[in-house]
């Protein structure tokens, strides 16, 4: 998320030079914790709050969940000897078996069956994952939990899990670096980081429920978001704990080109702002809401260049409604400017 946020902040200062947004990339869990503690104007997370986290919010307050972007997690790997134009095919259950430690070699029959024209090397797979808690891992383990009952019961999904096998590297940059430096390695990576490291590492396609092997790109991520949001999104002021694009499209066979491991990134902001919360001033409330409005409505194209597809229009409409409901001392903040 950090590359996207920093490019937004930079672009927004061109539009509104007198507003300064300070963004600290400290992880989704910390974003949630800080907004609960009331130290931020708005927080950001790749994972929605869990019901227990909603319960921990200050009583009487309503936290708004606003999808501001979407992203995808791809299986990135480093296999010398396989051309960069060849993208290995994976399924959810095979990925789950690899990350459970049950499939240990690249030339395992299960992988060979999925990739018939490719000579897979007889080398062990080095599994790489995040060492720190992460929304990217939340999405990936969500997908693995859907794909494998064994994974779901043994490991589960969260921002930090007890990985059965593999090496942990810090940050998406760390995972990309580890994959690039370790031959025959495989790890889940946010697509934006794959794009910037595409020389050293390659990524594979993942099979969706319709049976197609989808190589993640802006189009199919966009399709996944549309399909995942089509059954209806929770209202901005509702709890989003049960919402997951991955779950919604996991059994979707009608949308044939969706990329299965797709996720929203959320901004979190309280509905009723006032000076009693984090000492927010009117100007800060206006600044925050205007920034988020700009991000949702005008900033989406900036993300497309680095691998974050624009939000579909129904999500933008929902976000606009949610943002309009933010008040400062009872008065709506957004005035259309």
């Amino acid at each position, binding site marked *: 998320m950090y590359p996207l946020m920093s490019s937004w902040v930079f672009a927004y200062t061109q539009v509104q030079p007198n507003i300064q947004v300070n963004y600290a990339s400290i992880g989704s869990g910390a974003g*949630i914790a800080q907004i609960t503690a009331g130290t931020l104007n708005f927080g950001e997370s790749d994972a929605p709050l869990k019901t227990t986290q909603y319960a921990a919010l200050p009583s009487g307050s309503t936290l708004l969940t606003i999808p501001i972007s979407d992203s995808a997690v791809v299986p990135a790997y480093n296999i010398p000897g396989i051309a960069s134009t060849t993208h290995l095919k994976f399924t959810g259950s095979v990925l789950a078996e690899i990350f459970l430690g049950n499939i240990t070699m690249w030339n395992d029959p299960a992988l060979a069956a999925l990739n018939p024209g490719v000579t897979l090397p007889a080398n062990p797979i080095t599994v790489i994952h995040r060492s720190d808690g992460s929304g990217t891992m939340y999405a990936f383990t969500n997908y693995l939990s859907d794909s494998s009952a064994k994974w779901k019961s043994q490991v589960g999904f969260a921002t930090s899990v007890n990985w059965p096998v593999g090496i942990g590297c*810090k940050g998406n940059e760390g995972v990309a670096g580890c994959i690039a430096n370790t031959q025959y390695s495989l790890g889940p990576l946010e697509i934006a980081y794959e794009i910037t490291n595409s020389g050293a590492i390659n990524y594979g396609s993942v099979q969706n429920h319709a049976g197609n092997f989808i190589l993640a790109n802006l189009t199919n991520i966009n399709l996944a978001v549309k399909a995942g949001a089509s059954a209806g999104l929770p209202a901005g002021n509702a709890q989003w704990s049960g919402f997951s694009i991955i779950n919604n499209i996991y059994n979707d066979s009608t949308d044939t080109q969706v990329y299965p491991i797709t996720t929203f990134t959320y901004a979190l902001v309280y509905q009723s702002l006032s000076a009693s919360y984090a000492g927010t001033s009117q100007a800060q409330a206006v600044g925050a809401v205007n920034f988020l409005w700009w991000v949702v409505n005008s900033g989406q194209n900036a993300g497309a260049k680095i691998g974050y597809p624009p939000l579909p229009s129904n999500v933008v409409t929902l976000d606009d409604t949610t943002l309009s409901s933010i008040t400062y001392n009872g008065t709506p903040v957004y005035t259309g400017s």
Partner: protein
Amino acid sequence: MTSGKGIGRRRAGGDQILRGLVASAAIAVVILLLALGAELIIHSSLSLVTFGPSFLIGTTWDPVHQIFGALPFLFGTILTSILALLIGLPIGLGVAIFLAEKAKGRRLFGYTLGTLVELLAAVPSVIYGLWGLFFLSPILRTYVETPLHNYLGFLPIFASAPFGLDFFTAGVILAIMIIPTVSAVSRDILNAVPNSQREAMYSLGGTHWEVIRKAVLPYARSGIFGATILGLGRAVGETMAVTMVIGNTPRITASLFSGGYTLAAVIANEFTEASYPLYTAALVEIGLILFGLALIINLLARLLIWRMTRNTRFRV
């Protein structure tokens, strides 16, 4: 001096104030230490109550199922620190011996070399981590770990397939980081060994090396031990350099080429994402264990040095 009025009295007053200030500073440090320990205990109380002593011997760290145990991290911290000492102590001591004994005639050379070694201590920890991740780890994997694994893989310590991010690389990086501490302190210790010791050995017909080995080093033993403990203290707490090269997997194993985890690394990695109170408390308890470990190491070192030096005139 303290009698009488006028100048005498002012000096006494000044002394009082100075003594008071200095005593306050000392007391403040002690209070700070106690407050630090108390805060750690208070914020880990949920975890202390939930897990009790089983936390220290628990081997599972599972944030999803809310089971936490510190043993893999304790193991990793101790193993990497011991590795660091095994590699760093001979090198640091070697540098110190060279500078104190062999470079005596060449002042500028000795000074330059000494400064360069001490510059190692000026490099920030995270730079060591980056350098280790992108430069040292692949080299160690290709030229050291893979041959050792291929030829001596029947030995448990070389049994895992090497990937470069493991206890071994972490130990090497830590060794490099403690060399300046060990060498600087040891060199001062060796310089403090009286020449009478050396002369006595020479008069018995010893070679230069025998003088060092049999007269100088035994005399400086307690001081070198103190230097070792200082190095160990630094190795135990190192965070960023270790977490970037150790593989960050909680594991207890005899193999040096396996990924591991340390107390400091797990706090750095997971604290910002600790999403519920028990998780945070468990991480603070890890911090409490690390704090306790560092205190115990230092107290043990002081005790041993005291025992070694109480009957001699030479004190560190």
